[in-house]
């Protein structure tokens, strides 16, 4: 019981544990400090002990101020709904201090984020861009927030145990959906089609989709949505470069979803079915992120009349 109580007190005041590092100025400060300790001990000169006491007191006050600065911090990781490998994703951190204003914080996770001043209150979301190196399931661990506040001699850090498991989708590798579907798309489509966005030209895109007005900036193609209804099933075939196929598939999934049509994925015995929803897209991308080996397509799968995109 006593042990529990001690642990509780310890946790209350010191958890999460603080990290401590010297900055360059701090190292020089310590050189001074140890020199004074040595000379004071050798000579017994009380005035040197007084200077030593000043310096130690300065350290203590600095420690108290920095502790006050990070003591009541709270942080949550804010992740985007879709994260693709090798593609910068905006990772956010909701940082708040409900009791005090904090200064000069650095969120040290997936690239540092500097926060000059965090006002007391509900907090703010600070973001950084980060490109994950590989696809698949990944674990985002602890987040460290450190500060050199107030005097820049020491770097005190607080580590937050944030555990987030994320799925990093394959890096989209552009491939023309129209070409992949073997369809000479009119691009401007029927009267109900509307332009979703403009993207760089991909070989295979219809000439009618090219935005000639932007020729001076390079070749761009229009992407239409709402009615152009590109529909198809991406079928992954064994052999060839796996990562390239997965990347192309991820790109096509995005394109097909944007076009508003129904789409699906087949690989080995797996068939996602046909749908056009966002959940369906995420489901397919998650499958692609996890895929290690592509088996031969199962003849038992009935695709109906849907166009097949073989990769």
């Amino acid at each position, binding site marked *: 019981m006593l042990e529990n109580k001690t642990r509780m007190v310890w946790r209350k005041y010191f958890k999460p544990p603080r990290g401590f590092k010297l900055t360059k100025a701090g190292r020089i400060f310590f050189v*001074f400090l140890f020199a004074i300790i040595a000379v004071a001990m050798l*000579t017994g000169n*009380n005035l040197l002990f007084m200077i030593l006491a000043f310096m130690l*007191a300065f350290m203590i*006050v600095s420690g108290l101020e920095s502790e006050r600065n990070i003591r009541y911090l709270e942080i949550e990781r804010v992740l985007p709904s879709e994260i693709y490998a090798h593609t910068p994703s905006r990772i956010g951190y909701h940082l708040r201090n409900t009791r005090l204003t904090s200064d*000069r914080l650095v969120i040290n996770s997936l690239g540092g984020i*500097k926060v000059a001043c965090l006002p007391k209150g509900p907090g703010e979301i600070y973001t950084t861009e980060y490109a994950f190196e590989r696809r698949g399931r990944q674990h985002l661990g602890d987040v460290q927030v450190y500060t050199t506040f*107030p005097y820049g001699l020491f770097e005190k850090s607080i580590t937050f145990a944030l555990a987030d498991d994320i799925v990093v989708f394959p890096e989209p590798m552009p491939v023309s959906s129209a070409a992949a579907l073997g369809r000479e798309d009119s691009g401007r489509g029927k009267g109900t089609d509307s332009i979703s966005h403009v993207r760089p030209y991909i070989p295979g895109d219809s000439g009618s989709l090219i935005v000639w007005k932007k020729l001076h900036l390079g070749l761009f193609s229009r992407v239409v949505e709402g009615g152009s209804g590109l529909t198809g099933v991406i079928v992954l075939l064994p052999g060839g470069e796996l990562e390239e196929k997965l990347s192309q598939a991820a790109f096509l999934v995005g394109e097909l979803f944007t076009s508003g049509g129904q789409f699906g994925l087949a690989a080995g015995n797996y068939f996602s079915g046909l749908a056009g929803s966002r959940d369906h897209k995420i489901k397919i991308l998650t499958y692609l992120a996890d895929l290690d080996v592509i088996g031969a397509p199962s003849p038992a799968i009935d695709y109906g009349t849907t166009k097949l995109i073989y990769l």
Partner: protein
Amino acid sequence: MERPNLSIYDIPLLTTGISLAGILALSLAGMLAWPVFVLIAALHLAVYRWLFHKDIPGYLFGVVIAAIFIVEGLRIYFQGRGAVLPALRDMIVILALTRLVLKKTTREIYQIVGISIAECILATVFTISPIFLLGIMLDAFLTPIVLYLLDGYEFQAGTPRHPPLTHFVGVFLGIMAVSTALFFIIPRPSSTIVSLGIAERRRTGFAEEVDLAKAGALEQDRSIVMRIFWSQGKAPESFYLSGARLDVLTRKGFLKRVGQPVAPAVNTPVSDRLTIYPTGLESRNVFFPFTLVGTVPSTIFSQGLNYYWRSTTPPFYDVYVTRVLSLRFEAQDLRFPEELQGVATLARRVAGQAAIPVQVKRLRTYLATHCTYSLAAPTPGTLQRPIESFLAGGGKGACEHFASAMAAMLRAIGIPARVVTGFLVSEFNTTDNYYIVRASDAHAWVEYFDGAWRTVDPTPQTQIKKPRSSLIDALRFRWIRWVIEYSLQDQINLAVSVRLGMPRLRQGLSGLNTWAGLIFAVIVIIAVMIYLPRRRLGPYARVLHALKRKGLALDPALTHEEHKQRIKTEWPGIAPHFEVYLRSYLAWRFGDRKVEIQPLTEALIAKIHKTKYTPQKGE
């Protein structure tokens, strides 16, 4: 362009200010003459006003450093060891000025702060004066501000917040308070290896040996050499503090006896105790009034009639004395050299045939009327037979001449006598109730035997000073006592007094009046009422208490399941957490599973506090 542009605070002012603080500390420590300081201060003003942002090439700094090292190195080489500290001072001052004048980025400003701290450290080596603290305190005030701004500048993101100046005043006061406490706690070495920068004890005024042929006038040095607390016994208006007894009479005067040590009168009851703080005395003699019984510390040894400290004089010591006079004299105290027959003839003529006190009075009167008190140097013709010369033809002399002449004349008429040197103590500081002993209080007098050893002072112009109050000296003494001379022994005494102080504190508290006791009791009861109920509750009761504070009061008489249902309907936001907790709680309370319920309780209570409660109507 790397230039600090640090918002509301004027960094040029702070930088020049911190640089000047270091120089000020050096100057206050007596290492820089005031005109030099004024010149340097003017240079600082010029830098602040015109030169701060001038881009003077940084490589000049290296050139200047190299030049300083060469010049000061040569100086030490040619002038020897004595030039080391002055060379160090010059180097650091020139370094500070060069750094201040040349280009300044954050790196250079850090260097200026470092140099300033180094100057303060150097100042401590040279002084014991409290005044130099002004420089150090100015440094201690400015350094946090400058470092704060530099760190904000180097952060290089957004606009740093700048607290008001009062914040830094608070920081300064905090540093002062903590450093004061630390100063007394940091363990002191029991012995030191290098003797550097400790208070110099050159001033003394006291001379163990009497040199009547001393050439050159005596100086009237007013510096304080001792402070004495009369810790036990009735403090007199004035007293003779003896340092050495001289009982060997030669043609040239009295000398101390060597060999045959006389032990202190250890079996005699102690009548008085004095605590002596020799703050500026070089001598190793043990000083005491009357007859010595013992000392603390007891590390003394005797040689002849005198006592000495085995090593250096302790920073303070207690002497235990008795006012009972010694009843013994030795043949040594009567020896009279043949060469001083002239003195003997004069003594017999002046003293005549009478009782000893009458003879003593006659001799004293003779000296007072025929000799003149003077601190001037004796004439060269008197140097060979100083006592005879002094007595013949109305001599001029100091207390040593009077005492030697008196003692010699007493011996000449068959009265055992000796010269005693020490201090005549009469200056009393009523602020802290201690005697002040100055170098100018050094004195010589006579002890003669008349059934017991008695004291007579033949010097005519002996003055007794009136007690007076001196706050400045009391503060200076405290500074010396508790800062400069603070030692390991003091730390031990402090620890012991804290330990002993506890029962005294309890005793003191028991002596408080009834009303104070009642008020204290009420405060304690209120504090207990506020604090303890929460702590004394069990884990589940604490959860119920927390819910109640948020507005959801649950009847403790209901079952856990009923509590759960009610929470589910009235506060769905907290219900899942409560359910999870309840499972663990029931397992802990009734099951045989080992569950750490306290952290879970704390976590749930924290969740309850953080979650917003909006009362909902149940079905």
